[in-house]
């Protein structure tokens, strides 16, 4: 009875008593799905050595293959109405999120707000959102190629040579222009982005996307500045959206989940243009 849920006729999200996403039900499939914000501490290297450079504008290089948590219990507030149900989450002073489900839509929207990333501790930080699902993806995930073909990725693997990764996190990151997805024989999880981001799947059923970064050292690839923007006297605040689409991975249904993803992707990346006009006309004159 203490669980919280929001949803519509297609998709339902359940949150645990700590305020984190805990379960998603859609398409007749229900799985444990969690989501949280984490960060990697940036490596500080010796830029005189090619293989030991700092994390910077050109390279993502965490100090260790280990993430830091930002909170154990976000504050949450729930708003419900006839058109949309929303959960407002506040993770800490610099990370918050609104999760929404609109009536009649098959996706859940995650609008995140990250920044200014604190650097008083002298540590550069690279912030990610991570979804963990009870899906046995066996190291396989898919990222898109400029919104068109989906490319199969296998963890710690390259198709054309035998690779031995020394940096397991960065070495498994791939560009995500609009979509990253994984599946097993029963369930499928896809996250659509509103902009190009780096992403990966570092464990079965896990998808992560990098949303913001603030670094204190140059990586010596030519920009000659650390990635530490200080607009308005503080770090930048980034705001963006992810769309979660979840359901059966079977292809015998209509529409298939991949078709839903494709239409949603088009509707979000080529969204209607909005124009506003103040007017003195009455409604009748306007008509």
């Amino acid at each position, binding site marked *: 009875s203490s669980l919280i849920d929001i949803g519509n006729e297609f998709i339902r999200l359940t949150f645990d008593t700590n305020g984190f996403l805990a379960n998603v039900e859609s398409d007749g499939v229900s799985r444990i799905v969690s989501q949280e914000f984490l960060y990697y501490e940036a490596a500080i290297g010796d830029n005189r050595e090619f293989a030991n450079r700092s994390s910077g504008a050109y390279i993502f290089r965490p100090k260790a293959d280990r993430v830091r948590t930002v909170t154990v219990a976000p504050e949450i507030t729930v708003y419900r109405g006839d058109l949309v149900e929303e959960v407002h989450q506040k993770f800490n002073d610099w990370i*918050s999120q609104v999760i929404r489900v609109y009536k009649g839509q098959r996706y859940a929207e995650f609008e995140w707000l990250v920044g200014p990333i604190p650097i008083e501790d002298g540590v550069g930080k690279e912030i990610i959102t991570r979804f963990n699902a009870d899906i046995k993806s066996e190291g396989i995930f898919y990222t898109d190629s400029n919104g068109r073909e989906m490319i199969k990725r296998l963890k710690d693997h390259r198709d054309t040579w035998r690779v031995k990764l020394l940096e397991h996190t960065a070495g498994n990151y791939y560009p995500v222009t609009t979509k990253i997805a994984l599946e097993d024989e029963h369930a499928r999880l896809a996250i659509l982005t509103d902009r190009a981001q780096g992403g990966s799947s570092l464990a079965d059923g896990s998808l992560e996307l990098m949303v913001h970064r603030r670094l204190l050292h140059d990586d010596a690839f030519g920009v000659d500045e650390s990635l530490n923007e200080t607009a308005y006297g503080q770090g930048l605040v980034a705001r963006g959206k992810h769309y979660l689409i979840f359901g059966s991975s079977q292809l015998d249904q209509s529409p298939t989940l991949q078709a839903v993803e494709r239409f949603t992707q088009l509707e979000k990346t080529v969204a*209607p243009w909005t124009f506003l006009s103040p007017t003195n006309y009455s409604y009748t004159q306007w008509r």
Partner: protein
Amino acid sequence: LPHLGFMRETMGVMQHHDAVTGTEKQKVAYDYARHLSVAMRACSANARSVLNVLVEGDSPRPKRYGAPRPFKFEFKTCSLLNISSCDVSEQSERFVLTLYNPLGHTTDEYVRLPVPDVNYVVKDYKDVVLDIQYVPVAEPVQNLTFRESQAKYELIFLASELPAFGYKSYYITKSNGHHMKPVPDPENM
């Protein structure tokens, strides 16, 4: 044409990996932003002009040669809508929202407009009052130090069946009626 040309050139410059990924010096980043801003502003004049021609085409009044166009709208673009800030929706007693669908098929769109209060009425062109909902602008967003906005709420409604390569307009006005402010679900506090 010069407006469109400037946008084309800007988009050409934006193909550089520096512009896409952020591997440029900060002053170059500012310059990229300036170029995009100017191009968007220039092309908004084209959009305004084209939309006013479309509106005139739908108008029942005959167009006379040399006569002023019967109706003209500003068709402003609110580039800060993504941070829930828009002068028109926050300050106007009545305004028109126009949505142009660039897709090749009909689509629906949930509109979210930043507003200072909860007393608005939204009508479509068929004189139908639409269902609306208010949600508070998320607290951390309201507290962003650089955000100059009076909006405390977002007005939400469904713009349905926007035609392919076409537009729909909605008439939004403040009402005298009393509306309920959105409150959190008490069972989930």
